[in-house]
């Protein structure tokens, strides 16, 4: 399976948030025995307001709210993990928080790094296929 190395923390979290639900849940399940008793600080759905910048005057305004699921956990040693994904999927947000906490705690880092690299490659390929379909609609308008 192809891989794309993900070294940036922001990119790593973005890849996790977009990971296939079954895959991220499976990875999180595998981590649980290694992490000890997890304290759930937050597990809830809620809204994130999404602003946009107007291209005419540069004004930032609110486009509308996005339903998200959020999970915030703490490991026995005090290390925290956080997950937020769009949509109502508390399990996926919790799985993301578990993986985030494991990476911060130095648990299964090599395996998780490989999984995230594989997932990054899958997401990049998915985007590439979408963009190939979009490119097929490029038009060169002629005027007479």
């Amino acid at each position, binding site marked *: 399976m192809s891989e794309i190395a993900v070294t940036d923390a922001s990119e790593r979290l973005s890849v996790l948030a977009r990971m296939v639900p079954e895959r991220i849940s499976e990875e999180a399940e595998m981590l649980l025995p290694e992490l000890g008793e997890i304290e759930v600080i937050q597990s809830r759905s809620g809204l994130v307001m999404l602003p946009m910048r107007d291209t005419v*005057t540069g004004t930032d305004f609110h486009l509308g709210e*996005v339903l998200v699921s959020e999970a915030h956990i703490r490991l026995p040693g005090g290390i925290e993990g956080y997950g937020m994904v769009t949509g109502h999927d508390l399990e996926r947000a919790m799985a993301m928080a578990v993986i985030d906490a494991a990476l911060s705690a130095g648990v299964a880092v090599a395996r998780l790094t490989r999984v995230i690299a594989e997932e990054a490659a899958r997401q990049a390929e998915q985007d*590439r296929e979408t963009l190939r379909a*979009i*490119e097929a609609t490029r038009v060169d308008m002629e005027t007479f």
Partner: protein
Amino acid sequence: MAYVATRGGERAIEQAERLYRAQMGEVTPARVAEIERALPSLIDRVMGEASLYAPDLAALALAQSGGDLYEALLLLRAWRSTQPRLQIAAPVTQDRMLTHRRISAAFKDIPGGQILGPTLDYSHRLLATEVVQGETFTPVPVEKAANPAPACHPSLAAWQQAQGLVAAPSLAPVDRDSIPDLTKEPLLFPAKRAHTLQSLARADTGGVLALGYSAMRGYGNAHPTVNELRLSEAEVIVRHPNGTEFSAGRVKTSQAEVVTTKGQGTLRLGFCATLGWNEVKTIAGATLDLNAPGAPKGSPVNEEFFLYHTEPVESSGFCIHFKLPHYVTFQSSLDALRDAKAQRNKTEEPA
């Protein structure tokens, strides 16, 4: 207005609700999933007007309301009020969105080129009646290009600003927590631009179209040409408690700029955007934005006129409240009418 509480009819009310819901039958997870899958344009329209991006809930609201758009919006806006606001995301900027469609009717050769994306603009529209005869309509798959399109495209307005064709934005970006928010403060006039654009983003598509169309037909002061129309996916950039920003996922957005040459030596632009892909609303909304400056009070392109009258929950709610009991107010008007008639008859009697 004066209202009076009415009593009675509890059984009739309950049976009326049952009769209404019987039209739709069972609302199952499979039905909701099929609505979400099969009706993306309707889902997008509902999400934009509900001001809530949640495709599965929009599908549920449509299933539960039997497709009554205003009822679906009411359900979604009410549900939204039960949810906590967790964060305000980073502002979406045009040059960072995954662009699916990007066209200009004003400029043929725009930087980055024109991409039709998913559209029927140049297609022959025919009803596929063979489906009601038992056949299946199967769309022909896209023949993908060898190479992908660029994910992001430059803003046409930014290029026009660099060319001196339009005025450059003069505003400095504000802190995201300080952006005016209509869900927390009233709409007052003259409206803040952030309020105007937020109000248009959640406005009723049909209402915006009707008023925008009136401007296009000549009841405005400027005829629009589409400067740039985009359908995109925007990343929802949120904050980890440690401060790292990341994308929690993508949402579909649409935005339109319309342009007029009626400026003082430069082009003038109007703007509108919404959640979901909804071209007609953004073009009509941008036309209203273009025509609003200096519009007389009472004109369809006057800001107060079009923002108040295109709020879907308020306008539909006000409209349908007229079917609820008004017995006292109407009786009072009837009494006044009878009095006036009696008075007139009295004065018309010969001395």
